[in-house]
């Protein structure tokens, strides 16, 4: 299952059952989002504004100012980039209780081309005061985020990375706490902080390294903001090498947040930022792009091992 069908089809249905003041505004992506059942069950909670992102954020903000919790749905490539001023003024400055959900983030829309890739959305969301910025690792986490956001007052941006076949990271239930990274695997040689689609890749890379006798601790950095400084700096004290892995430009996202945190704390560990290396890549399927950016599991493993040898 893809993350957005889990988020909308499972997570939001539960939220609608328990909250009378929740509305959904979509920009012509109800069916794609997996809202088919909701459309019939809760038609009065649902607004389709057609293909208009500024209008979507504007209308959602107006509805939120009337005391409602409003979720918006469109592609991650457009949700912030097209409506950035509306997001800044209405959500960040005025606090409209809108949860912007960006689908198909990173290189999920690979063959459609760069116009549909979202590799700067975290940067845009992070620089706006009061926005909570989330990036789930799998579909279960997406469902948990959907529920958590309903009860977390204030604006948020959620970045969904898998439109289909999302790898399963969590095989069992776990407590999702916004702003608190989750330890997925332990290891003594290096600490990896991955987010979104890169969490599953990081775990696979850690398994490869384990076979080579290298122990890697893997954290799921599901909350980009507020950044979990405590967990991150604790790792910085324990490990000589830290890695951030994200399907996003290394400027502005998880890697930047980690670098800012580490340097302000006086450094100590070496930070390696894996992600889109601030350059454009040739078009193709997702894995083809990952390969160019060095984000495939074997490349991640190689990168970590090389860095450790070089210390």
């Amino acid at each position: 299952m893809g993350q957005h069908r889990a988020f909308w089809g499972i997570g939001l249905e539960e939220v609608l059952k328990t909250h009378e003041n929740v509305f959904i505004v979509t920009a012509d992506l109800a069916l794609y989002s997996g809202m088919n059942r909701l459309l019939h069950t809760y038609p009065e909670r649902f607004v389709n504004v057609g293909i208009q992102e500024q209008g979507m954020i504007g209308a959602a903000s107006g509805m939120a100012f009337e005391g409602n919790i409003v979720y918006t749905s469109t592609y991650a490539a457009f949700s912030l980039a097209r409506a950035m001023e509306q997001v800044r003024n209405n959500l960040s400055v005025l606090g409209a209780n809108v949860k912007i959900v960006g689908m198909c983030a990173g290189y999920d829309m690979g063959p459609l081309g760069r116009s549909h890739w979202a590799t700067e959305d975290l940067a845009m969301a992070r620089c706006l005061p009061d926005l909570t910025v989330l990036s789930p690792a799998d579909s279960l986490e997406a469902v948990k985020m959907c529920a958590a956001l309903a009860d977390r007052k204030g604006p948020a941006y959620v970045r969904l990375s898998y439109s289909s076949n999302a790898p399963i990271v969590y095989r069992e239930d776990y407590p999702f706490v916004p702003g608190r990274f989750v330890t997925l695997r332990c290891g003594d040689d290096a600490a990896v902080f991955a987010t979104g689609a890169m969490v599953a890749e990081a775990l696979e890379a850690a398994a490869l390294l384990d076979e080579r006798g290298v122990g890697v601790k893997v954290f799921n950095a599901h909350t980009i903001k507020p950044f979990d400084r405590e967990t991150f700096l604790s790792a910085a004290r324990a490990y000589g090498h830290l890695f951030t892995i994200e399907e996003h430009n290394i400027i502005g996202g998880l890697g930047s947040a980690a670098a800012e945190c580490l340097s302000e704390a006086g450094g100590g560990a070496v930070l390696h930022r894996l992600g889109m290396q601030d350059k454009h890549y040739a078009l193709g399927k997702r894995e083809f792009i990952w390969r160019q950016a060095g984000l495939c599991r074997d490349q991640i493993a190689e990168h970590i091992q090389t860095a450790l040898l070089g210390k």
Partner: protein
Amino acid sequence: MENAEYDALKAAADWIRRKAVDMAYLAGSHGAHLGGSLSSVEIYAVLYGKALRFRKEEPDWPERDRFIAGKEHGRLSEYAAMAWAGILEETILDTYLEDGGKLTGHPRDLSLGLEYSSCSLGMALPVAAGMALAAKRMGKGHHVYTLMGDGELQEGSMWEAFLCAGHYRLDNLCAVIDRNRLSSDGETEKLMALGDIGAKLEAFGWRCVHADGHDVRSLALAFERFREEKGRPVAIVADTVKGKGLSFAENDPRWHNGVLTQELYERALRELAGGENNADKRAAHPGDGQNGTAQGILGDRTGGSVKDA
């Protein structure tokens, strides 16, 4: 419209205009958006004196009509109108530029009756549409009003919202367009022509009503048309003159944002006084209404010639 009501609204407009000029003078060398404020004086007078339902002692009254200011350039008149209506203390007007002031930067503050923070063009109508949509979905009977400059219609986001409001048949939404035909660089029709705004909006599913934006009777009739309309949002295209009331500022784009020197301020006061004794126009304020709403203050419109304004 009865003569007493007409006189009251006219007096309100005079008071608001004078107050806006005072505030512009207070801005000093910082300059003020005087031109666009003066073109919207009568619109604000009729909005707060006749159209909007509100309780001045309870600005966040849940059943109030929402007013979403989209025209930052009319802020002087908006604040003055709210003071005239008794929502804002008159003394607070003097602080509208103070660092950290309650009115500075046009905040959103429901305790002050400020429903939305404008300042950026193209932001308000989409929010107003969302509020009107929410009212419909939540079964609320209040109305949503917004005021925009005609130059603001050059923003693409406005047309997304026009489309949306028309599609959802938001007949609880009224958009007033201050058609003063000037923006910062000159004439709208030369810079980026808006053409027949009424025809455009009718094509988007709106009802369009034209009004003389400096005639309180014409504006009141236009708002009447809004209240009786079913199934469509209503746009009131109010023909106005930028800088209205000051000979040196009328139709001059330099007064989009200008500095009112002491000499010009004194000249403005003489012109506004019109040779008469410029008595405190506040004396014309009719005082508290029976039910605490503006319509209560000024009474329901009971007569007047009905024209297709």
